[in-house]
């Protein structure tokens, strides 16, 4: 943590909203990437960003500087996004058929011309990510979207590097199975 960041955090801990604005300017895009990685919808991701910075302002007094500030913020962002996604699941328009396969619940297959292929792919990725256990999902998002190192992920999640590697391995394996047809052709694009 550099001096500037330490100063911003200390001011924010004293209730200075200008300091929060400086932290927001610096980190809002990163928080948005994590949020979007989990919820996969623009409006929801923006809601999560707002919620994260309001929560940060309330809880920053608890930050003692034992870990890097960004890992503290990323953890807050990930937990908020996962909570948001869990609440949203009740009203999601995607559902599983009896075999557990992908099937849009609004009768998409009856009107394929109205939805772009790209949209379908995105929804399929979102559906596949939603099938992962929370810890594998969070680990994959930290690695694939935010490109954190194994060490940084282990700090953000409070687990060992071995656990990070194992979660990445099994998460990827499951995603590969779920998105088999999709990922084969994309690597060389």
């Amino acid at each position, binding site marked *: 943590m550099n001096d500037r960041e330490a100063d911003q955090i200390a001011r924010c801990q004293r209730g200075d*909203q200008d300091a*929060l*604005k400086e932290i*927001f300017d610096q980190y*809002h*895009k990163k928080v*948005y*990437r994590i949020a*979007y*990685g989990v919820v*996969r919808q*623009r409006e929801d*991701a*923006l809601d999560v*960003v*707002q*919620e994260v*910075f*309001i929560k940060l*302002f*309330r809880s920053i007094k*608890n930050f003692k500087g034992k870990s890097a500030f960004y890992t503290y913020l990323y953890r807050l962002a990930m937990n908020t996004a996962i909570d948001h996604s869990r609440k949203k699941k009740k009203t999601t328009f995607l559902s599983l058929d009896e075999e557990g396969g992908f099937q849009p619940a609004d009768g998409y297959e009856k009107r394929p011309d109205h939805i772009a292929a790209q949209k379908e*792919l*995105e929804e399929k*990725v979102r559906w596949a*990510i939603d099938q992962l256990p929370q810890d594998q999902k969070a680990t*994959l*998002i930290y*690695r*694939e*979207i935010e490109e954190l*190192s*194994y060490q940084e992920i282990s700090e953000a999640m409070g687990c060992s590097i071995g656990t990070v*590697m194992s979660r*990445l*391995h099994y998460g*990827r394996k499951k*995603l*590969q199975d779920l*998105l088999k047809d*999709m*990922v*084969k*052709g*994309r*690597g*060389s*694009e």
Partner: protein
Amino acid sequence: MKDSCSSISQLLERYFDRQATDEERSLVERHLPVCQTCHERLRVLEGLRKAIKAPVDEALKEETFPWVWEKIERGIRLEKKPSWQESFRSWLDLSPLSRKKVWIPAVAIAIVLALVTSPLLFKKTPSYSERSVVEYVESGVYNVMVYESEKAKVTVIWLFEGPQNESPAS
């Protein structure tokens, strides 16, 4: 030296995540051109990363974050002052004691002690503090003693005719 596919395959994800050591990286890079299976696995990992990451990059590129900061400011302003119960709960959440959960046995012990000691504390003992009045009047005919208890609203009067005959009447 020909590296076995199974040992390289264990390194492949670390290599893909740029977390391999220099030595591991050169091992994988020597192996990849001669192994179609590992090469294909690497391509699948790349495809997966693109499928996860590309929509996020795309969304961020187009995002303008309209009124987000203003909404955060409003959210902070509108947050009500926490009640004392909420503050107490939040103190419990923040307390290192709470995190270690040591307060649970401490509270349990306090409750047991309270249960054990409360019968002793509230045990009824005979009280001599109740207000009462005793009057004694000597006369030529009778000696009279009057006892009044305020709480029980009882009045006892003794009439003494002499040392041999004494009878209470109320």
